[in-house]
């Protein structure tokens, strides 16, 4: 696969804070690539370097075969960027915003309408409404339309779904899937682990570093231990009993279950069940499960932080 983006040894410091260190990765043409991490992980800084808005202190990045520093003028015409903060003009109407962004890129809405039709058609009934008066979901659709109006070759989306409800998030990802089918290269950042599975490949970011890069399925193979899902009638007590057990390596709540790893090399689900049963738990179930993206992220995060936490 041809590379659309190449990042080599990128680092960035703001005063005493090392925002990014030794970032290396490549994104293939037509790939949907996800940067997964919490606030402060460095996702926005990295994206702003790649969209030519911020200079890195170290390393170099190539986009579409061009250096992001030397060729920033040309690149700005060829990429689309949807920032994390709503950055459209609140006092302009939906339609005026779109026309404005089209004209800035020297094109017209009509020329590239096909690309944005599906997204923009949902906004058309409100095209005279001022952008500042739109609901969260509609703002997000307008921002995406404006980022696409010049038909970019690479699209950068910085946390497009933060603060958006589960239903709108699902719809947004369906839109991204269709853009990808049309061959667009997409780099998207998100703090939501459940969105990671929708990417072709993902990079986990934490404290300015990349912890791992792989396909969503591949990354979960990095999970170091057998993982158990444990349920019982009293989840709260189960949590504190398991946490205080000397055998527990990790205990985390995942919805209605607890995800547990044990520091004994070969403990079975039946043994865990028996020992919890002896401690008076009822409606118990213990099963070995496949670790998910979030399990793996937590494991890699803790590995990195070592014993620094209590």
């Amino acid at each position, binding site marked *: 696969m041809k590379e659309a983006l190449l990042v080599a040894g990128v680092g960035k410091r703001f005063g005493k804070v090392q925002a990014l260190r030794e970032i290396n990765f490549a994104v293939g043409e037509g790939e949907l690539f996800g940067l997964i991490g919490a606030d402060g992980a460095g996702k926005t800084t990295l994206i702003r370097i790649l969209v030519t808005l911020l200079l890195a202190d170290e390393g170099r990045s190539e986009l579409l075969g061009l250096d992001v520093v030397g060729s920033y003028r040309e690149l700005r015409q060829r990429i689309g960027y949807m920032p994390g903060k709503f950055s459209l003009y609140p006092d302009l109407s939906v339609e005026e915003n779109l026309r404005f962004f089209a004209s800035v890129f020297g094109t017209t809405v009509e020329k590239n309408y096909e690309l944005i039709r599906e997204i923009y058609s949902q906004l058309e009934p409100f095209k005279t409404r001022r952008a500042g008066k739109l609901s969260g979901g509609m703002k997000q659709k307008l921002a995406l339309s404006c980022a696409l109006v010049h038909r970019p070759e690479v699209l950068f989306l910085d946390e497009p779904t933060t603060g958006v*409800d*589960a*239903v*709108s998030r699902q719809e947004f990802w369906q839109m991204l899937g269709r853009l990808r089918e049309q061959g667009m290269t997409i780099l998207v950042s998100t703090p939501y682990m*459940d969105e990671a599975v929708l990417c072709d490949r993902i990079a986990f970011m934490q404290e300015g570093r990349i912890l791992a890069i792989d396909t969503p399925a591949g990354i979960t193979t990095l999970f170091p231990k057998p993982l158990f899902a444990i349920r019982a009638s009293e989840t709260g007590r189960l949590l504190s009993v398991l946490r205080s057990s000397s055998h527990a390596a990790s205990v985390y*709540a995942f*919805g209605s279950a607890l995800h547990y790893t044990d520091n004994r090399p070969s403990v079975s689900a039946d043994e865990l069940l028996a020992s919890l049963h002896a401690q008076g738990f009822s409606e118990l179930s213990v099963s070995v499960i496949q670790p998910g993206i979030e399990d793996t992220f937590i494991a890699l995060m*803790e590995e990195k932080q070592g014993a620094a936490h209590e």
Partner: protein
Amino acid sequence: MSELVIHTDKLTKRFGDFVAVDALSLSISGGEIFGFLGANGAGKTTAIRMLTALLAPTSGSATVAGFDLYTGSEGIKRNIGYMSQRFSLYDDLTVRENIRFFAGIYGLTTQAIKEKSRQLLETLKLVEVADVRLASLPLGWKQKLAFSVAILHEPKIVFLDEPTGGVDPVTRRRFWDMIYEASGRGLTIFVTTHYMDEAEYCDRLCIMVDGRVAALNRPEAMKQHFSAESMNDVFIQLARPGRME
């Protein structure tokens, strides 16, 4: 069952022709962790603004922390806490200044502020960074502090509006530990979230669709009722806008 901390009867808010909250009836008891869910625009924020006495209802009645919504708004404000992801603490103030500022806002005496600050810095293990500006602290610490500050004046109920947005998965779970602990001490928690796994940690859930209560129950009962594997499935079934007749 302990006393009701929130009780609303057909609470309604209209903006012109638009009914943002339509006849909301809820009863929430002391110590309950109550999850308040809904799509963007479903009326959650409007409902919370009414319950925190920031917005007058159009019709219906409610008592919050024992005070009537129409006549006791000052009493309500003194007996509730509020924390959101977007607005909680001031980054440019130090840890100690933030505590003092919010304690002052909630009307604590100088002596009480001194005592509370000392206690809080010790329990949160923040003594060493007490005079550091908040901006340079890790997110997890800020969150702990924001929550503690929101309940510094010992309210009966705390409203948490998307408290865990954008937080890493470990910090998010530590935050829920704090919620459990506070609820164990009898504090009522009213929480909104877009993380559906967190919905499962609540005692009861209310899902709002188009200003109305579409479902109100314990998470397990809700999953059973909708034959869903997870709360995410329930939410997607219910909350798709325009789905409800």
